[in-house]
């Protein structure tokens, strides 16, 4: 599901390749890669849902914009490594602006935020189609080749992806749980009015939190761009998986997202390894349903 295209690509490469791989080890590495992607995509969703109570259905489109930023940076002749911070900044600004113009008008009505972000996702996708057409664009892998690890050869870029994604997730989590800013956000979550009367400018903090959520999606988009085709629909591939992570992990603690991503990645990788992709989907669905039946409350998942 998440990184489906990427997985296909990797697998087809493997079939006729010179790599000699140990199937199980490389499945485990795939699982780790899928965990890192899931975690970074779901993180932004979790921040916006958990802290602001907003279900952002345009989150996948933020990933898509990040991927196109990477494409444009390449077209401008710049390095892919530059694309990652640029995507973060572009999405931080875009997210902040969207919060200002749209989301803040409808905080009181959660179902309306779902519908408005529905609309937003259509607009973003369609703008991408108008600007870039439906054609598949490709971003060149900056580090082609493979690195030996644990007795197998594994694509170097995937190691880079895992490292960057994990770093971004950890730094973001620390920001929200350990810093002054994080404390302010938590105060707003606990009681918006009280926080406001204590002198916190909740509107600025909200814009910033929404922007950071978008920025992590942008980084995810730039990171996955070299793994598969960049096209306007790419965001939709990532959305269900990210929701699944949020449901499994729960949002009452942000760390739940990381553990949720771990569980979902493990279950999906396992199901793909032992059976096939259809079964992996069905198992994921059952997982979500089971968590919702036995979770302690609708805000908490299995782990948090």
């Amino acid at each position, binding site marked *: 599901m998440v990184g489906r295209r990427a997985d296909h690509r990797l697998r087809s490469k493997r079939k006729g390749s010179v790599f000699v791989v140990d199937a199980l080890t490389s499945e485990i590495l795939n699982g780790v890669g899928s965990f890192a992607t899931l975690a970074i995509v779901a993180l932004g969703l979790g921040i916006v849902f958990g802290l602001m109570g907003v279900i952002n259905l345009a989150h996948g489109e933020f990933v898509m914009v990040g991927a196109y930023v990477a494409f444009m940076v390449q077209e401008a002749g710049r390095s892919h490594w530059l694309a990652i911070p640029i995507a973060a900044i572009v999405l931080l600004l875009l997210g902040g602006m969207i919060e200002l113009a749209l989301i803040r008008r409808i905080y009181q009505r959660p179902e*309306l935020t779902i519908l408005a972000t529905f609309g937003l996702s259509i*607009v973003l996708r*369609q703008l991408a189609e108008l600007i870039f057409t439906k054609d598949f664009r490709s971003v060149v892998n900056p580090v082609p080749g493979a690195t030996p690890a644990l007795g197998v050869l594994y694509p170097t870029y995937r190691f880079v992806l895992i490292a960057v994604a994990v770093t971004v997730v950890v730094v973001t989590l620390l920001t929200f749980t350990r810093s002054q800013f994080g404390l302010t956000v938590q105060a707003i979550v606990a009681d918006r009015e009280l926080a406001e009367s204590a002198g916190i400018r909740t509107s600025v903090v909200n814009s910033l939190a929404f922007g950071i959520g978008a920025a992590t999606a942008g980084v995810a988009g730039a990171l996955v761009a070299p793994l598969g085709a960049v096209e306007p629909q790419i965001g939709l591939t990532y959305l269900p998986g990210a929701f699944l992570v949020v449901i499994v992990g729960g949002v009452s603690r942000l760390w739940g997202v990381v553990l949720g991503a771990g569980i979902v990645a493990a279950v999906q990788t396992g199901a793909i390894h032992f059976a096939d992709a259809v079964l992996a989907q069905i198992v994921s669905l059952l997982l979500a349903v089971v968590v919702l039946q036995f979770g302690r409350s609708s805000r908490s998942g299995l782990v948090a």
Partner: protein
Amino acid sequence: MNLATPRKAWLLMSLGAAVALNLTLGEFRSGQLSLFLSLAVLAVSLDLVWGQAGILSLGQLLPFGVAAYLSAKLSIAQPTLGLVAVFGSVVVGAAVSYLVGLAAFRRRLSLIVVGLLTFMLSLMFEQIAEQWRDVTGGFTGLTGVPRLNIFGYQTSDRGQDLVISVVAILAIGAVAWLVSRPFGAVLIGIRENERRMEACGYHVTHLKIWTFTLGGAIAGLGGTLYVHRTGFVSPGIFGFTLATNVVLWTLIGGRGTVVGPVVGTLLINFLSAALADAWLQYWVLATGLIFIVAVILVPQGLVPALLGLVGRPARKTLEPDLVERPVDERDERASPIIDASNIEKRFGSFTVLADISLQMETPELRCLIGPNGAGKTTFLDLLCGQQSHQEGDVSLLGHRLTSKPAWQFARHGISRKFQAPQVIDPLTVAENIAIAAWGPTAWPLALAAQSWSAQVAQGSLQVLSQTGLDARLNDAAGELSHGEKQWLEIAMAMAGDCRVLLLDEPTAGMTVAESLRAAELLRQLHSDFDLPILIVEHDMAFIRAVADRVTVLARGALLADGTVDVVESDPAVRAVYLGQAH
């Protein structure tokens, strides 16, 4: 007044128009009309669950798509199975939604989580349909679905269009009829206030599951009509675009009305068909923008907004007859009336109630008092199933009801008024009373057949007449003042076969004169109907005027119990209230 007549006229006019359009429009347009009407059935199914019952279903494509695949499979395998495919689709649509409903409603997931779950299920079905090639045909889907075959008679293109249009209109009419019945008012009650509905004796979870199942059956019908019209089905039927569009049509047209979603579906689809050839990309972009603008500017939708402009309400009120309920021969009242023994209630590590026992042997007017945080409201919640506790037993009127859900307490005659008045704002005073009177005996199927009248207990009618609410029977409950809502809720609590009345701060927000008047009314109800009443209160003047006996709670423990005089002179009670050291 015969309410059915204008509705029948509407239905006949719509059917006539559909036939006329089918005969006069060209092949292409009449095909479009039947296609869009099959989508309107889908939109109306969404309106039933979302607009009426308040269940945000973003996965209404699930029953629709599964039914479409099933129809396609059956019809391709054996074209004469056309009608079997249609009926099978309705059944499978209902079954799919029933299963989703079980997963979604048994655990009281929040609106948002249900929306998320249904949406995710739909998107995942898209991926399953793409990948399960043997059965679903993968990306290309199933093509070459033959036209409807009715008892061996193969319809022509135009004949099929006519059948689809007529069936769609009949289905939409059936939903309009259903929500105009008391069943519709009950769905609004569930949408607005689930807690109140449970306290009235409705099995809310059950009703939501059945409403969702019915929505699935209707969506399934839409799915089979749709696939016969288009002749093929592909995984996109579960996808983001259609899933969002059906929400858009319903939202734009006006959820909560049946006409709205139909208007929205036809309007947007004809518009997009006209614009799409030349302007496809811009049109899709425009739908996104319309979505955003509609959410912010006309969240209620076009049809209600237009009706509002000409001064008509979007919903026709029921104006039910409230008939006095004959006093039935009551079996000898079981004793004790209230028997709560050794109750312990904890939230995590915090103990709210520790080893509390309270008995009421004979019908008395008892007040439960104590400083803030004493656990009074929590205790009242336990006596009517609104919360559950860890230790101890609750029996009322001889029935052991420990850990039973609130609706079962209500069905044993235990009625509750909440601290902040909880009434169903969009419904009228009379509708609120009728809903409360139907509650203790309501089952989903019976509600569809429920007539316009409600048998209301004499005590409830007495409350209405003595507080002047009987003059405002057809006003929306939301327009009442705070005090009037308090009395309406008490009248609701007494509307059924009320045997024990639990009141949480009935005089909150009342003036001194009003609360003394309230005391008088409650004493009268108590003596007229021999009604046991347990009241949580703060106001000592009211308590002195009303109480036979007072029980004092402090910090989750029982402090004192006796007549007002005894309790007032108790040094321990004085200490907790006045803060004296003891």
